[in-house]
């Protein structure tokens, strides 16, 4: 998806409009502002614009011009995708759907006057506000690591340059060297993400970096993880002897790092490492705190509409929300966005509102053509989003079934990104 001239004009016209008028849009139409153009925000903006057929003004605030999906970023590390293939521009959302795409940060929210302030100084009025800012990291959650150390020990948990950096550092690990990952505590974005990443890093080392004697150490504060049996089966059969997973029972949660000395200390034992991926504990994107709608680390919402429990004019989607049983995934954020879009249109234009339905599937790649998946359907109860039914791949499945599962994930990637960006 390239930014051609037509798209460029669309986007820059929107920016020019935003610059010219301190309060964008005075058309009398109901106004929706969406903060965050990721899995939740881009989908919500697109569905509201598309289905309201011009009856609602939609502004999407997103600082980056190119959104790199975290989903499939592990496949880039493993050598299965190019970085370009996971980058997406907002051109279509501006030109095809008439969304005002503003490339800026939201830095303030006044819930009383229903306004959003941008870093560039502009103020946007809203009738409904949708926040889908993803995650931020909790300071001090991994001793010795702070965001200032992210170039020495990348998190790569927001995709793009961080992912590129991590891959380059792993490629530079010397023969028989050591890579360490510090895995995050629950709840965090993409439960199988760190373990798919371990698989893809083993694949990179073994097949692309010609370094099959390198070692991978995973320090984990949890006793078990998503699809654990499936990953451990694959690690044993494809990357035998390379991966040492240290769970909480074995001190994996007692960890500190020294990014200058490039050491990792696990349960008192100091190890010199050649590359290190620190995935800290997570919380809702900071703008939720600024809006004053968080409880603890996340923003609680009603599953019926994804409305904040604190302010009914705000909907929170995706990773930032505390909603109940759904995992923090791109698929979940996309699914929640459609429910929120329907609710917002219903509230602002009186269109019909149906009972909320959600679903999720997370595919992970363990090795070439060795895909596994876990999925579930959900419904809204007054208390939370509750799981109805689910499935998970089984250990010992035939190779052709695993290949078909991987093929599904490729189809899903093009489906969901088309659903987000048009």
């Amino acid at each position: 998806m390239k930014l051609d001239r037509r798209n460029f004009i669309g986007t820059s016209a929107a920016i020019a409009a935003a610059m010219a008028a301190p309060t964008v849009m005075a058309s009398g139409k109901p106004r929706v502002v969406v903060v965050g153009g990721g899995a939740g925000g881009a989908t919500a903006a697109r569905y509201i614009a598309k289905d309201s057929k011009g009856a609602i003004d939609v502004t999407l605030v997103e600082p980056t011009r190119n959104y790199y999906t975290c989903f499939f970023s592990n496949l880039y590390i493993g050598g299965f995708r190019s970085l370009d293939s996971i980058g997406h521009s907002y051109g279509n959302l501006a030109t095809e759907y008439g969304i005002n795409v503003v490339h800026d940060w939201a830095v303030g929210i006044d819930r009383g006057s229903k306004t959003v302030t941008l870093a560039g100084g502009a103020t946007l009025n809203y009738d409904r506000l949708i926040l889908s800012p993803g995650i931020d990291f909790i300071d001090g959650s991994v001793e010795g690591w702070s965001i200032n150390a992210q170039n020495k020990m990348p998190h790569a948990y927001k995709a793009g340059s961080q992912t590129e950096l991590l891959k380059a550092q792993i490629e530079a690990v010397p023969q028989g060297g050591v890579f360490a990952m510090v895995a995050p505590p629950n709840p965090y974005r993409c439960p199988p993400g760190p373990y798919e990443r371990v698989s893809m890093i083993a694949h990179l080392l073994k097949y692309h970096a010609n370094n099959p004697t390198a070692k991978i150490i995973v320090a984990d504060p949890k006793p078990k993880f998503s699809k654990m049996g499936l990953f451990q089966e694959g690690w044993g059969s494809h990357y035998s002897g390379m991966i040492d997973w240290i769970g909480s029972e074995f001190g994996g949660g007692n960890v500190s790092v020294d990014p200058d000395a490039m050491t990792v200390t696990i349960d008192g034992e100091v190890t010199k490492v050649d590359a290190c991926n620190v995935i800290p504990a997570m919380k809702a994107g900071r703008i939720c705190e600024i809006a004053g709608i968080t409880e603890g680390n996340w923003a609680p919402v009603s599953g019926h509409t994804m409305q904040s429990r604190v302010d009914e004019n705000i909907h929170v989607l995706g990773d930032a929300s505390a909603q109940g049983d759904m995992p923090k995934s791109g698929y979940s954020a996309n699914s929640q966005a459609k429910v929120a879009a329907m609710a917002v249109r219903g509230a602002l234009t009186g269109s019909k509102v149906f009972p909320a339905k959600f679903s999720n599937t997370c595919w992970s790649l363990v090795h070439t053509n060795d895909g596994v998946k876990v999925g579930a359907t959900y419904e809204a109860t007054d208390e939370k989003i509750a799981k109805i039914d689910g499935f998970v791949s089984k250990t010992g499945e035939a190779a052709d079934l695993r290949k078909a599962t991987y093929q599904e994930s490729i189809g899903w990637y093009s489906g969901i990104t088309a659903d987000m960006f048009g």
Partner: protein
Amino acid sequence: MVLLSGQIHADEVNIDVPFELLELVGDVEYGEYLASDCKTCHKADGESGGIPNIYGKSMGELITALYGYREKIIPNPVMQMQAGRLSDEEIAALAAYFEILINWEE
């Protein structure tokens, strides 16, 4: 469609759909909402990777496939789960919506 995995696909199974289901008249608006769930995987412009195209299929084909997945006659777990929560009315609503798409592109 191509056999990816030696698995059985919708068009390779004999499925007897109950007459009452085929008779139902679906609510198109409800179908449109339900179909938003399908679009996470099934792209409007056709098949991609392991996800088949479902746009342009007849009402009968769609109802048969969804019923087949719901009743677990066709084996794919993703589709069994998607169809598993659909009532007869919801299957009819989806079929009605997709039928309309054949005539009016979005």
